[in-house]
């Protein structure tokens, strides 16, 4: 029973990884690519690694440590890239409708 | 297919060495030359590891009792390469610090201009 659950969890994780990579390939903008490449890939890697830990029960705690480290470090790096690309002047794509950071700058300049 | 299966690691290692050598020979920028040196270093490490590889072998680490020592790959090139990687990053840092000093002294990174500035 346990290997079957592990295979199902791992397969769903790989599907998430593939969809995240497809989002990085297809999206029109740095920020959209960042969103697709971080959220989707974090969930996919977490499910994949924990699934391998379920398939081999002796490895479970080590795989859990790896998954928790990915869960910590991946948002840090993506947040740093997003902030850096905003500060280095990368524009949003022309089809985007709302820009909260520009609104916030206008609000701060009006104070 | 058998040729590819036997020689794919050597192809990759020689490709990396040749690309690094081409970068060192062709480019004028000093940082680009150091990037080429780094790529060549990686290629040489890959070549040394690929010499000691045994097909269907396993890692030379006794972690569990059912691992047989007759199937292990050669551990000596791995120990050598492990030292070579650390020495490589030290050499790279030294080269980069020399490049920073050159830029502060001459104001440029182009090798031809630095050569023309010689008295």
């Amino acid at each position: 029973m346990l290997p079957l659950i592990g295979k199902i969890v791992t397969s769903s994780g790989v599907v998430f990884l593939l969809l995240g990579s497809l989002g990085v390939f297809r999206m029109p903008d740095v920020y959209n690519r960042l969103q697709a490449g971080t959220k989707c890939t974090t969930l996919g890697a977490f499910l994949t690694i924990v699934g391998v830990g379920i398939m081999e029960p002796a490895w479970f705690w080590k795989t859990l440590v790896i998954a928790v480290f990915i869960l910590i470090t991946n948002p840090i790096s993506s947040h740093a890239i997003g902030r850096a690309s905003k500060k280095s002047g990368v524009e949003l794509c022309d089809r985007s409708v709302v820009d909260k950071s520009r609104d916030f700058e206008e609000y701060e300049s009006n104070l | 297919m058998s040729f590819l299966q036997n020689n794919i690691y050597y192809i990759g290692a020689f490709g990396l060495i040749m690309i690094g050598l081409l970068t060192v020979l062709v480019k004028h920028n000093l940082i680009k030359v150091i990037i080429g040196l780094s790529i060549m270093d990686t290629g040489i490490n890959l070549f040394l590891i690929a010499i000691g590889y045994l097909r269907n072998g396993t890692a030379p680490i006794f972690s569990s009792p059912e691992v047989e020592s007759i199937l292990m790959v050669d551990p000596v090139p791995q120990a050598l390469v492990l030292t070579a990687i650390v020495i490589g990053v030290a050499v790279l840092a030294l080269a980069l610090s020399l490049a920073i000093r050159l830029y502060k002294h001459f104001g440029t990174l182009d090798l031809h201009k630095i050569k023309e500035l010689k008295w």
Partner: protein
Amino acid sequence: MIVIVTLVVALMLSAAVSALFFKDLLSAVIASCLVSLFASILFLFLQAPDVAMAEASIGAALITAVFMIALRRTKRYEE
């Protein structure tokens, strides 16, 4: 298995060639980080996990940081 190894070797060589051709030195440094990452995967295929660990930590993290410090002190674009 041989297909995956061939794919990794081809991606590594193409990343090295792109490191040769970029005019932006930051992109060239990122490409060299990518070469180191694929070399680490190849070291794992060659049954050398300790070398793969050292290559991953030094080649992808430390070399990139050292290059970034050097690029901050000098110029970013190659003319």
